[in-house]
């Protein structure tokens, strides 16, 4: 009889564990090995301007995951934490213990990765691939770089070779690009060098974009603020710049710049009167960026410390391995959630839609596209370990 009871107990326990995902070594209902430790960790991301808006949306959706039922008794020491006993229907495939993800205001991809490495951020946003061997890069989206001018100049076609010539200062007049009469000096605008959009463009044109002929913007003219290479993806700075010296934009209709295509098409307030050119004869668009026929496409990354979030040597699984508790475990769980395929997502607590559908809507909102299937290595992401 005792043996039977033991068997029955073991079966019941196995069933419960199966329903929750993984055996709970931390005690309580939170399955271990998942980053769920029963603590509502506050986890902070930093870095890219380009991916800031998308990641804000992703962080919000993650925070809206249904997760565990919480102890909501105001006098309880476990206020806001998972109740010891959870219903069998509890959702375990997204932020089970209600961690809180949030992103710092953008400083640029390189600066964000530096914060992650230094420990002042828990994960990083990056619109370019770095070389840090302690980090894991999870590419979750695809984007292009649009080449833009002000709408006072009729857009046309430009080649990568011409862009190289413009930024290495060997092509200086618009007549060399458009065939117009000479006399309109090209004003190539530089960019915040911490930006991933800067790094991507630099690698594509093979020369330093913040070169001797690159222009800065000056938002207060003779005021105390110095001229600077503008923050990426914001034409307002160019429109509002005051001509205060030879290294500052003088004639906006003679400028040329580069811009995240996703940001360009998603945000008219940032795009303003900028217009896009075709590059090597190809228009930027979802399909041409997805299939790489547009010559300046790139991947966008969520970045974590490799000790926190990593993938097995053999790709193909959407499981992310690494830390199992604390903020590091929360990062691992968030990373896996971001890269999960459609069938592995739970429901959004406000809309009832699959979080995969909700994430898809956020890709559209922010102008980006998911990676093509052929480029995915883990779930919907492509993982790179420099």
């Amino acid at each position, binding site marked *: 009889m005792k043996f039977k009871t033991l068997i029955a107990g073991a079966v019941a326990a196995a069933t419960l564990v199966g329903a929750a995902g993984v055996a709970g070594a931390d005690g309580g209902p939170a399955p271990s090995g998942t980053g769920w430790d029963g603590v509502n960790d506050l986890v902070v991301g930093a870095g890219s301007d380009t991916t800031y808006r998308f990641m804000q949306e992703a962080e919000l959706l993650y925070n809206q995951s249904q997760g565990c039922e919480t102890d909501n008794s105001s006098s309880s020491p476990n206020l806001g934490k998972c109740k010891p006993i959870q219903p069998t229907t509890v959702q375990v495939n997204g932020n089970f213990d209600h961690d809180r993800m949030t992103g710092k205001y953008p400083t640029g991809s390189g600066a964000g990765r530096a914060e992650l490495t230094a420990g002042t951020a828990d994960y990083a946003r990056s619109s370019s691939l770095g070389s840090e061997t302690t980090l894991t890069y999870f590419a979750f989206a695809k984007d292009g770089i649009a080449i833009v001018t002000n709408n006072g100049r009729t857009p046309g076609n430009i080649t990568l070779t011409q862009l190289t010539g413009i930024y290495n200062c060997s092509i200086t007049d618009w007549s060399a690009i458009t065939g117009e009469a000479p006399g309109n000096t090209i004003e190539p605008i530089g960019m915040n060098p911490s930006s991933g959009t800067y790094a991507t463009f630099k690698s594509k044109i093979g020369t330093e974009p913040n070169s001797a002929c690159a222009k800065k913007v000056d938002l207060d003219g003779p005021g105390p603020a110095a001229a600077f290479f503008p923050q990426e993806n914001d034409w307002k700075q160019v429109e509002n710049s005051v001509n205060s010296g030879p290294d500052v934009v003088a004639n906006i209709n003679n400028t040329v710049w580069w811009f995240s295509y996703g940001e360009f098409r998603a945000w008219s307030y940032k795009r303003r009167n900028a217009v896009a050119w075709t590059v090597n004869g190809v228009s930027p668009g*979802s*399909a041409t960026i997805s299939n790489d026929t547009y010559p300046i496409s790139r991947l966008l990354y969520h970045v974590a410390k490799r000790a926190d979030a990593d993938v097995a040597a053999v790709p193909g699984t959407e499981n992310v391995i690494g830390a199992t508790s604390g903020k590091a475990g929360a990062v691992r769980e968030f990373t896996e959630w971001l890269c999960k395929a459609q069938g592995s997502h739970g429901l959004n607590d406000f809309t009832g839609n699959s979080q995969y559908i909700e994430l*898809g809507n956020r890709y559209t909102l922010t102008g980006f596209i*998911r990676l093509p299937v052929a480029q995915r290595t883990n779930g919907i992401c492509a993982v790179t370990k420099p």
Partner: protein
Amino acid sequence: MRVRSLVAVLGVGMILALATPLGAGAQATASLSQNPVPFAPGQTIQPVTVNWSGQTPNSLIYVDICKKQSTAPGFEPGQDCGPLSSLTPNGTPTGAGSISVDIFRGPDPGEQPWGCFAPGDQAPAGIEKFTTCYVRVTNGSLFNNSAASDVPFTIVESGGVIPEAPVAILLPTLGAVVALGGFFFLRRRAALA
């Protein structure tokens, strides 16, 4: 009497003119160069030109292929339009323009669980079949429904359609054949007799 008639005609004209919305000239419209859109057997992409007018001058244009009209309840571009079909040509000073758009036959290439099909097509499991889809044109923002112009389109398989001969040609031809047949039949009977 003639003056009265003139005044009456002018009055009716004025009423008609006033009844026409002032902004009617700027009404956003769009059309496709081919509709229904012909596909050969096995063909999954067919480029078609979409023409539009009445969009805000110099405002970025958004051209998308969607399964619903912008006015449909709950319309959400992220779910109801194909993510890889989106084009964003620059706006023009006139608010009119055109671009080639790749109409797809079958599941959405951007992995949405729906597709645009010819009536006789069978949709794969898990894919919702739409025999009328829409080319949507708007400006300024993908989410600008007030300026959206939705062109419904259908898909036909061009190899399977037999062109219909006009009755105006068929009837006289048939009549001539019958008359000639009758003439030769009667002549042959007369010769035999």
